[in-house]
């Protein structure tokens, strides 16, 4: 196997690790924070479903990201992934939850700047608009779900202990679904840029399961995500879980459900076809950030309760993180590309 490829892939794996460290907190952060699940249980479930989602659901790169910048050189892809990973890692280190999608978008815009290519402003506008729409929508969905669940438990006289058991199971199921969606949607962000140049051959497991070369690549990316989940996500997870607002297990379930629904809305082609058939405005199919969905849902519930329990300073830190992440990724990518091209003499873009 080409060692150069493996070297370049390392930045993608590093980004995968950062994604695992960060985004697992979105899936199970509230469940672990409310002590409904142990961290190890959450980490094992998240890892299994992220791998399944990546290998079986991560069919290709994101079209929207592709439209933002067509990265056509391996060294360029390496630097984009590295810049995104470094900014996500830095934020994770500061215990601020960030969006990996934002980091990637920032890094791609940085690559566009370096190459002197015009960034497709309408696509960028569409993506940035979802950074605002997504948390608001998620907050609204969370409020509706929370009110519905409160009503349900008032009408349905189920024992408090039984409620606890149901919520625990629902948290596992919805968390697993979210982990699958995370693997499917974000694996393209992690190693998608390497898909064209991957040298892996297809693997056959005793004639029962067979993976294409791309699936092997995605599997490697997913493994990096798993390592991130196990080694670093616990730190970030506690911010989402408890610091932003003290939550009940019921609220924790609402947060995960709202996240799953919002991710689905922004990635459902079926829903878009339905809206088009009734001449309604389409929803942009953009890889939205699960972080923003989670924070939006938590704030939605907090505001419903009168806003007293919300730790606004942590909320402010998170919003600041959203602004700094794409900017940091963009600047890092720009500077990194300069070094790679002029010091290491690598081709970072094709004309």
């Amino acid at each position: 196997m080409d060692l150069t490829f493996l070297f370049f892939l390392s930045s993608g794996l590093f980004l995968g690790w950062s994604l695992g460290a960060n985004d697992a907190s979105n899936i199970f952060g509230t469940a672990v924070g409310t002590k409904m699940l142990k961290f190890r249980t959450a980490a094992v479930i998240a890892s299994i479903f992220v791998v399944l989602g990546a290998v079986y659901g991560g069919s290709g790169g994101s079209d929207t990201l592709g439209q933002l910048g067509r990265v056509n050189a391996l060294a360029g892809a390496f630097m984009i992934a590295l810049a995104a990973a470094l900014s996500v890692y830095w934020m994770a280190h500061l215990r601020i939850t960030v969006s990996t999608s934002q980091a990637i978008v920032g890094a791609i815009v940085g690559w566009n700047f370096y190459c002197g290519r015009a960034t497709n402003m309408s696509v960028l506008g569409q993506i940035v608009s979802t950074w605002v729409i997504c948390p608001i929508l998620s907050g609204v969905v969370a409020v509706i779900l929370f009110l519905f669940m409160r009503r349900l438990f008032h009408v349905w006289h189920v024992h408090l202990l039984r409620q606890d058991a149901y919520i625990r199971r629902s948290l596992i199921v919805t968390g697993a679904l979210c982990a699958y969606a995370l693997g499917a949607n974000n694996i393209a962000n992690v190693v998608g840029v390497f898909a064209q140049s991957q040298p892996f051959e297809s693997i056959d497991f005793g004639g029962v399961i067979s993976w294409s070369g791309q699936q092997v690549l995605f599997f490697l990316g997913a493994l990096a995500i798993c390592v991130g989940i196990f080694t670093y996500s616990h730190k970030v997870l506690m911010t989402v879980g408890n610091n932003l607002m003290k939550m009940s297990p019921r609220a924790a379930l609402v947060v995960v459900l709202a996240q799953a629904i919002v991710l689905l809305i922004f990635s459902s082609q079926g829903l878009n076809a339905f809206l088009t058939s009734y001449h309604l405005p389409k929803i942009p199919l953009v890889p939205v950030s699960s972080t923003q969905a989670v924070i939006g849902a938590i704030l939605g519930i907090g505001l419903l309760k009168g806003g007293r329990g919300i730790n606004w300073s942590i909320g402010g830190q998170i919003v600041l993180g959203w602004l700094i992440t794409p900017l940091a990724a963009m600047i890092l990518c720009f500077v990194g590309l300069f070094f790679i091209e002029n010091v290491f003499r690598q081709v970072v873009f094709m004309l």
Partner: protein
Amino acid sequence: MFNVKLSLFSQTKQLEQKIDAMLDKIIESAMVFKKAVDVYLKEKRSDAYRKLSKEIKTIEHDADSLRREIENRLYAQNLIPDFRGNILELVENLDKVINEFDEVAHQFYIEQPEIEPKYHDKFRELVGQVCDCAENLAMASRAFFRDLPVVRDYAKKVYWYEHESDKTTAELKECVFDSSLELAHKLQLESFLSEVADIADLAENCIDQLLIYVIKRDI
């Protein structure tokens, strides 16, 4: 590694049954206590009273072991993390009410206070109010687990019966001290009346806390 076992629903059901059994014990102890006092007023320390007093002791023992099992299971199975502390407190307070029933019944057995027949009706009334208090506390606690809005209805009843028991106790104490009994006898009766009224006070404290848990659960 997985703390969520397949048998969690059955374990949850067992714990639900234990909490229900604990609440049943309060109702049982109140009913047996009422009957025991009635027997005492008629027959003083008879065999029948001895049996009833023993029955309350057994109920108290059972309630103690139920409380310990509930506490162990809640922690061992890591159940309802956000309410575990409150439930433990509730179960402990309920246990205190049962303990008080046992203590008062035992005190009757040991001290054998002389209660004149003219006080019997008022005394029965007081015991009835105290037992109603405890029974409504048990119903309010059961509602806390299953039907939250109803807790307030039972709480209202507990408060009302506690208030009534205070009035009855005051009236009885007044009668006792206005009588020509020996001072030692008066003081003994006063202490008994206070002990019985304390059961209603314990139930009232328990309800106060329960209502706070209701607010906490509702948000």
